[in-house]
């Protein structure tokens, strides 16, 4: 365990915010003062003691919807990230270990998928698929797994030539053993450092899709969708849409701060939000 006193201020800020967001997401029905779809007051009522963030475009309590929204947004983003990691790393390791035609074919397919901007390809596919949560997770996870694949393959190619892997092969271990018992433990740290970035990317991506009306469908609450629901208020000077948007930004910043600390990353040529 790291020494608590040596955690920098930024990381503390990130950790505490992440904990708050997670707590809200897990215990949403207990924490939220009102129900998710419950109409409690006027449309776009200003912030008050009773409704700390005011009410939304249908008169629902914005704070309660934010809390339920945390649940939807974080859960879908986490599942998509998990899918992209499992798919990307297993295929990437397999490509590195097996080599030959499997490596060539999978690498070229990944190159091809990455030649199209992620958002554009997601929109193309979502134009024919039904917009359900499962579709969203599958589309986001599969498209994002291309990036994990590249990283996993690059890391595994290096590990694959190590003596202990050679020894395991000579011992007669199968591919499954090589991948899960030799390569995976040694590839874990670069992969975990990527995890935070991919999660942020998934949150931003999901929010963008929902904002465009192609992600999570109403009446389900999710932060990107809430921005869409309340955006018409902006021109009347009602900041309701800014609150869920700020929550997304805050979540992304806090995960970034934590990831930065875990990694002790310096500014390098990686990072950013990818090609969108």
């Amino acid at each position, binding site marked *: 365990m790291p020494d608590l006193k040596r955690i920098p201020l930024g990381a503390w800020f990130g950790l505490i915010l992440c904990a708050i967001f997670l707590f809200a997401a897990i215990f949403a029905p207990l924490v939220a003062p009102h129900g998710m779809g419950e109409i409690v007051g006027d449309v776009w009522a200003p912030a008050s003691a009773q409704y700390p963030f005011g009410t939304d475009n249908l008169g629902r309590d914005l704070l309660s919807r934010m809390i339920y929204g945390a649940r939807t947004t974080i859960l879908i983003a986490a599942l998509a990230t998990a899918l992209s990691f499992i798919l990307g790393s297993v295929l990437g390791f397999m490509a590195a270990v097996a080599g030959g035609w499997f490596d060539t074919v999978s690498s070229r397919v990944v190159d091809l998928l990455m030649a199209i901007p992620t958002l554009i390809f997601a929109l193309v596919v979502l*134009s024919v698929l039904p917009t359900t949560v499962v579709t969203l997770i599958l589309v986001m996870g599969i498209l994002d797994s291309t990036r994990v694949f590249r990283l996993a393959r690059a890391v595994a190619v290096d590990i694959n030539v190590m003596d202990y892997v050679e020894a395991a092969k000579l011992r007669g271990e199968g591919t499954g053993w090589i991948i899960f018992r030799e390569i995976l433990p040694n590839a874990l740290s670069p992969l975990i450092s990527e995890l935070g970035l991919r999660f942020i990317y998934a949150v931003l991506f999901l929010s963008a899709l929902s904002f465009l009306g192609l992600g999570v469908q109403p009446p389900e609450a999710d932060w990107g969708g809430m921005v869409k629901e309340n955006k018409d208020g*902006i021109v009347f000077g009602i900041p309701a849409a800014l609150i869920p948007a700020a929550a997304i930004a805050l979540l992304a910043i806090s995960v970034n701060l934590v990831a930065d600390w875990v990694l002790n990353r310096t500014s390098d040529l990686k990072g950013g939000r990818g090609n969108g």
Partner: protein
Amino acid sequence: MGTSIPVLIVKRVGLGLLLLLAVSILIFAGTQILPGDVAQSILGQSATPQALANLRAELGLNDPAWLRYLHWLGGILTGDLGTALTSRQDIASSLWPRLKNTLFLAFWAAAISVPLAIALGLIAVRYRNGFVDKAISAFALASTSFPEFFVGYLLVFFFAVKWQFFPGISTVYDGMPFLARMQAIALPATALTLVVLAHMMRMTRAAILNVMQSAYIETAELKGLRPIEIIRRHAFPNAVAPIVNVVMLNLAYLVVGVVVIEVIFVYPGMGQYLVDHVAKRDVPVVQAVGLIFAAVYIGMNIIADIVAIVANPRLRHPK
């Protein structure tokens, strides 16, 4: 001996065209995941079997997928993008003005963000680990974490609604005077700039820092040049290739990031057109716009590679 530059460029462009062909297959295949459902989704559940059969015949859905693909590809190569299912309008004629609008917006965002990013990156290196550098890093962290619509609506909320400097909705039309047009795109262009600025700046900083660690920079320091002179005369020329690469990649992102920004500001560009028709499940429009976005993106990447080949002699001698 390395290969000559023109040969390398022709090879790279050829490779890009091949990639574009593969991408067109992928985009076409991506819309065929639910075969035969297009007619059903246009007409809805209550459609009569006769109407369905008619529409399928009209759309050529009875042909095998590869034949439809060839038909589609042939149309695109001759400039015929097909007709929209929902409005029955010719796609190409409604697309070109929108493409012009999108490129206009992206051009001005690029014209602001590229010089700004390079200047800020240079300043960050000059005052490394100082206050300015830290401030720039903090800004970069914020900017990569903010969703586009947060930046966009913040701008609208303050500049359009509270202080009323600029319009919150960017209406542009043909024959609009240049200044009025510039005022209309002021906010979306600013939002786009903010979205790409940080990444471009951080990578500029990293590229120059990388150069700053080489031996000739140390020599320049030892001979007593001022730091800003070292950056201008010695570091910058060597960092140009990686910086151009960063710039092109970010411009490619800009053309794509435009999708969300256009929806925020109700700007009549390609992105809004795409999103509208995805919601309506108008597959021909989605395919056409998706392919154009992909083509622009691939084109930017080819240019980045060519600049890198021209600027860096080492890339002309592949190992």
